[in-house]
């Protein structure tokens, strides 16, 4: 009787969340999967089932391939910059925990992660600006010819990577700091008594012990890298008001197919590709973690 009463309370209490969740999460996810197998142009009423035709069309779509390549380069570029930098910076901050600047370090490295993206991107747009930007001034002082950073297909991808890394770093440092604080102090004391220097204990003790954290941060960074959109939109929009044409990323291509070309089914199949990428990354993370857990 009492159990039954408790069960009723639990059901009533969880119902609102469950209903909202079903409407705004489960249903749209299922709908994405369904639409990806259908041909639906917003204008027509009919939505014929076409199997995997959308996906086979994606294979030959140059714009999609561009987007996929750019997005992959951006995601891995951010990863390669962020993880080593964050690890070293977190180690240094952890070493200086008792410094009177400690909270200044944490705050200023974390601020880029929390500020709204568009205003922050505006600052970088100025830095990269071909005529007014300090970056070109700096380069010309060093004797390097000024570049049109945001108008060159290769350079603008680099700019997006820099902007994304600048933002992602704060999160990675924070998670690493949590990791450093959880490492057993006794081990570090022992290795110190054996005569290991700071860099040695960092290399032989911290890095191996922080492997699960590195794995976690890497996957999070990669996943958010694959979802990049706003950064490319703001940074690579040219002055004629044609936003983001230059750095085509997956989400941009998807939205364009859906809302500019009215090909919703096709866009949904791109979303499914994105989902598969994210799932693969997550699976890799879990399987590596499990491997590690085994003696």
């Amino acid at each position, binding site marked *: 009787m009492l159990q039954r009463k408790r069960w009723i309370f639990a059901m009533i209490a*969880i119902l609102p969340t469950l209903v909202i969740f079903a409407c705004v999460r489960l249903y749209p996810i299922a709908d994405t999967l369904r639409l990806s197998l259908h041909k639906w142009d917003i204008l027509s009423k009919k939505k014929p089932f076409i199997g995997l035709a959308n996906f086979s069309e994606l294979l030959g779509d140059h714009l999609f391939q561009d987007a996929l390549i750019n997005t992959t380069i951006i995601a891995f570029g951010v990863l390669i910059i962020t993880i080593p930098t964050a690890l070293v910076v977190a180690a240094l901050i952890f070493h200086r925990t008792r410094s009177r*600047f400690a909270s200044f370090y944490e705050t200023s490295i974390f601020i880029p992660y929390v500020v709204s993206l*568009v205003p922050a991107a505006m600052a970088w747009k*100025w830095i990269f600006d071909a005529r007014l930007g300090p970056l070109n001034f700096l380069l010309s002082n060093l004797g390097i010819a000024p570049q049109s950073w945001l108008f060159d297909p290769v350079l603008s991808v680099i700019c997006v990577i820099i902007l994304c890394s600048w933002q992602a*770093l704060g999160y990675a440092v924070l998670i690493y700091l949590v990791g450093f604080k959880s490492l057993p102090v006794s081990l570090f004391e022992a290795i110190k008594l054996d005569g290991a220097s700071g860099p040695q204990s960092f290399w032989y003790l911290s890095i191996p012990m922080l492997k699960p954290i590195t794995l976690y941060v890497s996957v999070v960074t990669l996943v958010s890298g694959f979802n990049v959109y*706003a950064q490319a939109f703001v940074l690579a929009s040219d002055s004629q*008001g044609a936003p983001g044409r230059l750095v085509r990323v997956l989400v941009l291509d998807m939205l364009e197919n859906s809302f500019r070309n009215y090909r919703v089914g096709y866009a949904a199949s791109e*979303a499914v590709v994105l989902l598969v990428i994210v799932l693969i990354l997550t699976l890799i993370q879990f399987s590596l973690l499990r491997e590690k857990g085994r003696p």
Partner: protein
Amino acid sequence: MIKPTEGSRLRFRRKLIDRTIDLVLVSFSMLMILPLLFLVSNAFKSPSEMLNWPPTIIPTDPTLANFKAVLGETPLLHWIGNSLLFACLSTTCIVSTSALAGYVLGKFRFRSMNIIFFLFLATAVVPFEVYMIPLYFQAQALGVLNSVWGLLLGYMVMSFGIFLIRQNVIHSIPDELLEAARIDGAGEFWIFWRIVLPLLRGALGALAVLAFFQAWTSFAWPMIITTTRETYTIEVGLALFQTGFTVDLGRLSAASAAVLIPSITLFVLLRRNFVQGVASTGLKE
């Protein structure tokens, strides 16, 4: 035995290393916020000073002209208002759904609850971008495009919020406490309201800060939901404002600074909450 002189030399060496590390960290931290500092200072510069090299951090002749121009050209304050309303509604929604669901999933071990928890867990990795197009058509069917309700539709629940509260419930609310209250004849809703919620205050605060910043900085969803100038959030408004080709950098900086300064202030004030919330995303069960 270490001789006293050697000991002091070692200590000196240690100190020297620490100072060097401090120096490296201070310069690195400054480098991280330098773009934002320049942005704020550019906002107060006249067009001619913008061209100066090297760029000045403190404008020699500060002017408010950029701010006046931006406020005249764009409904900036209106956009900020839209974003604020959206962020507050989203925070309220996320905090209440997470509190209820997290508590139930943490303390009521029925098989049906486990199935629900698995459902939340399984969909948590799916990025928002994957399902936002069908969600857009749902918003269209509901007739909430170009409104704060449409914005809210995408930001009503947060899987991570549910997990965060569930973890907190499991670790910080003892079963004995709830049982004692039940024996005293307290109803389940009373227990939740009077015992559980007060104990979760810290976690809920951290979650609220996270949820607020999440909505405040959201971009892709407001971008597709709002298409009229009056309904833009500040992020969308700014992003589209900067694509106009008559816009100069001074005004853009002013508009950006007007958004950044309050949110950075808010962050510095709520830093503890924020860091606690974000840090717990990295913690595993």
